[in-house]
């Protein structure tokens, strides 16, 4: 049970799940960093594209690539609508108002999807024909490798975006000091809209990656949201690398605990980590203690 192959398999599986958590946490952390909101509906931004994957691939039988592109397009729309309806009218208000509003949006999306798609769990066709692939001596489902690879590509892309492009610098400036950004001529509202869209796209990618290996249900987003919170907090609430590290951390720890301690309580471990971090080191791995200006 503790041999190297099994451990390696667990590790890869944990990293794969962790990568998904990282993606969702990233979406969540971006919105927190950019506009200071906690988006309770982040899980729905994974659930909705997952359902659409199922519809496009299983029902309409579209080929993979066009289907994925359509979904990205849908998520652009989703992000824009979400921004306009749930965030934009509330942008001056205390953060609890926005949080409650996202709770309402999450409730709405979950139940609407239940009404539209029904209660039966759906399956999406697998992307790969083979069941497992020999990766350095360990047999893992290729989808896991795809997920981990996608995360790596995305991290690199995002680094390039934020550090090397003008748009990315504008996004950073807006996140750090909105008034200053405005004074510098940055179209702050547009940048915020773009941030919402980008966050939605991240959710879309997570949904696309998950659909072949998970049963798609209308309340699947919920657990992901909670684990995204836990990942973000563990990594440090304002921190982008923190979200990624936090997600991977929780994915791996959760898997090992489920394997060696208790599979029944599998979901609990993420929350134990959450509470432990909150009590012992609320700023997480990478977060900075931000003191309030008095």
């Amino acid at each position: 049970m503790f041999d190297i192959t099994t451990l390696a398999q667990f590790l890869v599986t944990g990293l794969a799940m962790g990568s998904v958590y990282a993606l969702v946490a990233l979406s969540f952390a971006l919105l927190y960093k950019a506009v200071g909101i906690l988006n309770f509906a982040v899980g729905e931004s994974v659930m909705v594209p997952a359902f659409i994957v199922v519809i496009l691939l299983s029902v309409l039988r579209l080929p993979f690539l066009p289907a994925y592109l359509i979904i990205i397009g849908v998520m652009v729309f989703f992000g824009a609508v979400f921004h306009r309806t749930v965030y934009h009218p509330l942008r001056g208000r205390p953060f609890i108002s926005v949080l409650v509003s996202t709770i309402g949006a999450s409730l709405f999306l979950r139940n609407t999807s239940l009404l539209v798609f029904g209660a039966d769990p759906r399956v999406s066709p697998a992307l790969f024909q083979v069941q497992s692939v020999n990766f350095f001596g360990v047999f893992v489902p290729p989808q896991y490798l795809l997920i981990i690879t996608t995360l790596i590509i995305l991290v690199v892309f995002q680094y390039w975006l934020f550090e090397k492009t003008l748009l990315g610098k504008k996004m950073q400036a807006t996140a750090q000091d909105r008034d200053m950004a405005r004074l510098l001529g940055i179209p702050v509202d547009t940048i915020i809209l773009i941030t919402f869209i980008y966050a939605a796209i991240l959710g879309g990618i997570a949904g696309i990656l998950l659909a072949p290996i998970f049963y798609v249900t209308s309340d699947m987003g919920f657990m992901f949201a909670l684990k995204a919170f836990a990942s973000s907090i563990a990594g440090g609430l304002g921190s982008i690398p923190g979200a990624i590290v936090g997600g991977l951390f929780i994915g791996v720890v959760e898997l090992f605990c489920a394997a060696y301690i208790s599979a029944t309580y599998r979901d609990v471990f993420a929350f134990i980590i959450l509470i432990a971090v909150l009590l012992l080191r609320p700023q997480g791995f990478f977060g900075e203690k931000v003191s309030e200006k008095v």
Partner: protein
Amino acid sequence: MSFKKGLPVKIPFYLAVAIVLAALPMLIRSNYWVGTLNLAIIYSIAVLGLNIILGLTGQLNIAQAAFWGIGAYTAALLNTRLGWPFWATFLVAPPTAAAFGVILGFPTLKLSGRYLAMATIGFGIIINLILNNWKEFTGGVDGIPGITSPVLGPFRFSTNGSFYYLALACLILAALTQVKIKNSRMGRAFQAIKDNELAAELSGVDTFKYRVVAFALCSAYGGMAGQLFAHRTKYVSAETFFIDMSILFICMLMIGGAGSVAGSIVGACLLTFIPEWLRFLQGPWAMAIFGLAIVVIMIFMPTGLAGLAKSVGSKMAVRLRPESQKEPAELPREASH
């Protein structure tokens, strides 16, 4: 300020309300609807608790259903395993839930709003998972059946109609207590913390103590509601106590009006009855609409129905009696609902 204050018919008004309330089960013939009414009353008590921590003190608690669950299970276990009667579980369940409220409230003191909300979610989930999985103690998914009906002296409250009076009494007790708290030094401290915690601390309010007390009160109310629920349905299982219920409570509070005692009750009743009245609005339909309603309310009516009533009421009061807007010689203490 309630526009009711200006009306000359205060006492007869309350008397009429009391008579209607007392006769309600007779007026509503159907046993089913009285049962729903009981449920609405019990929910109201839970939402009143949430009002203290969220409406008054401004701390987001997404775990109220967990305290409801703790209250319900405490009552169920004491009743079925040890044979304790209703009045005994009534005295023990709320303090037990309150103890858990302190367990949640105390370590989270140093956390600001965002982190606190997440901590409550985590707490609620852990409690729910424990209740669901600890078979020996809680019966796991099967729950605990066979809870007895309340018996107080010669009175047996085993029908919906009779239980109504018991629940109503508890609700009145809970509501009046909260009105008193809201208009007291403690209530002002809570609201000060909500509006500006630092300034509250620097005005002499021990913000740590009051935040913990607010949590304890909230969870005590939740526990009381759970205990009533257990004795009403005579069966508890953890399915009911999942986070969706905590969110439902928040919906009820927000729609009714956070901060308002009447609003908490109205919100709870509305969101219990509407899905029942409009049959096709059950389940996901109702929840989807509630979700949409929350977004709309946060945007257009953040003070909920109670806030709407207040502003309509004060506008009407101005129009009805323009003469009496002179400043009174002495400033009376305002009792707000």
